[in-house]
């Protein structure tokens, strides 16, 4: 039997943005790819997301943002992770992210940005590459 634990992923919707399609699809898709997926539901503050990530002991956080507030909200999540010494958690971002903002997000420490049209298996492959020693 495979004794390795599954990779745990928190899919989170920071802020008041209610566009949930991407979060739903990625949550279902990664679950079918063999990950443990926890979805926060709508309207989470950056602080709540950081706490949930730590409590659920996840290796990956996927932030879904379509309100145009991705820069400030992501920055707050990254700051929170650093404060809590949890910045080893891989953070990926999805949503309506203009090309020009991707570099800024990566500058904050975001590992990857996946925009519309990305196949789930590409996201899964990315996570498997960058989260070693786990199975999924």
């Amino acid at each position, binding site marked *: 039997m495979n004794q390795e634990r599954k990779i745990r992923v928190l899919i989170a919707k920071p802020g008041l943005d209610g566009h*949930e399609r991407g979060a739903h699809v990625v949550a279902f898709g990664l679950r079918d790819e063999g990950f443990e997926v926890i979805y926060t539901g709508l309207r989470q503050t950056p602080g709540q997301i950081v706490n949930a990530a730590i409590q659920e002991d996840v290796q990956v956080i996927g932030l879904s943002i379509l309100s145009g507030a991705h820069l400030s909200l992501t920055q707050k999540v990254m700051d929170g992770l650093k404060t809590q010494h949890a910045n080893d958690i891989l953070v990926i971002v999805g949503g309506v992210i203009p090309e020009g903002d991707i570099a800024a997000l990566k500058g904050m420490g975001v590992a990857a940005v996946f925009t519309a049209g990305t196949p789930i298996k590409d996201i899964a492959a990315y996570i498997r590459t960058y989260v070693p020693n786990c199975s999924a």
Partner: protein
Amino acid sequence: MGNDKKKIEVALQEWEEKVLYPRVKRFNLQESPTRFYTPLSIKHGNFLEKVGFPGQYPFTAGNQPFDFWQAYASEAARMGYRPDWGGGQVGKYGGFGTAADYRDYLKRMHSMGRKGGPNIAFDLPTQCGYDSDSPYAEGEVGRVGVAIDSFRDFQIIYEAYTGELDIDKVPSNFTINAPAAVIIAMYAALAKQRGIPLDKLRGTPQNDILKEFIARGTYIFPPRPSMRLFRDTCVFCTQYLRALNINSIGGYHMREAGASRIQDLAFSLANGIAYIQAGLEGGLAIDSFAPKFTFNAFGGSMEIYKEIALQRAARRMWARILKERFGAKDARSMLIRQPITAHIGCSSTTLQRPLNNLVRAVIGGMAAGMSGGIPGAFPPFDEPLGLGHSQEAVQLQLDATRIMIYETKVADVCDPWAGSYFMESLTDATEEEALAELEKIEKMGGAVAAIENGFMHRAVAKSAYERQKQIESKQEFVVGVNSFTGPNEIEVMINRVVEDTYDPELLRMAEERQKANLAQLKRERNDQAVKESLQTLKMSAQDEKENLMPSICACVEALATLQEICDVLREVFGEAQPVKL
């Protein structure tokens, strides 16, 4: 006809054996990739009963023989009319920053001749019932719309609407749902202050809370008290704001969130039925308020045959529900009044090779023109590239619409598909499937119950994932996304410059300035009056039978904030909880 039918049956069988099957076999297929329809495809019903004439029950062929824009189309072309997007007499949908920022923007628009009524986008804190100084509002004040904390903000916006643009002359649209009662109360308070009779106020509050639970997510209170608030606004508008539309019911948001076409149609009508019932429970006669219901839009897709069928089925279903189930006599009660008909939906646009989205939007516009609507190319091709559209994308959208209207003449025939064996059978099938889904919801206890038990929300999420799987497994093809992406395809470059609609510096400072405005309001107002009005509201809220609108109006006039009003209601009603998947 009976004899004819027999002959066709025989001929059909012969065609299948001699033409169709040999061809399918020749290409080594399991089945034919195409279908062909005959009079046999139409199972029951006759023309008058199922289609009828445009502008007559059951409205399958359209709400009217022609729309207002068609009456003036040639004139519009001769004078080079350029619409101020928004539909009807309202201006472009917008809003940002503080009320003063938005007021100044509107004044600038007016000086450029864009004099449509306000079509207000509210920021997310306002939509969710939070003031600008709430921790939940941090980073979101004035971003996706204008921040409204109190009646004072509302008044400031309307400083742009006086004289020939006063509120008895131009209509207003409010894209607001959970706190719609508060915004309607502000509109009434403004009229009162200006000495304008309430029945002169025109416009449309979205006021469609049910779809927020299913898709859009800006809910505050649980479904049942939310429906009480709807009932109260419905009764208040019917009694006093008689020219104002009551709501704008949307399937569009659900489809964009992933709902299938049938779910979109069934859930929209189920929600509509719940709103009708709320009005009746408020003691209103059906024909006194149903004519003031509007629809925002159903969703759309690239499969235009099916979208045209949806529009035809929707008109017939709603008309029948109103007439047969609710006993409406006034034809206006039976209409799906909506600004657009078929379209492709924003979720059909692709980030990859984005100019293709113009082609897609035109196909949707043709479907609109063939289903009783203005043949509008929607959305602009750069929709998936980020918030805002470039001037060029908007120009091409506008021209595409003009080409469809004037050069193709696509909308010169009402319901051009009427009588098509294929379209009539597809319309029947759409209606049948949507009725089955509607019946499922009715068995649960109607839309509110199907929202409370999470059925609709989960169904939409599941459909979204199904669609994704179809694309990833290449059962469905999207050009440039999961197919035709090889090395020989070339990237068509576009140079997209989105001008700042709003001053970026104002936007950056909006939160801070709005918080200062709010602090000033709280210092200046009469605290005792605020406290008393909120106390009265609380007592009214505790009595389910009471209409909340008079108390909400009193709170608004006493300068209680939007959050203070919502907090009182949160205390009595509780808060909606997100659905667990």
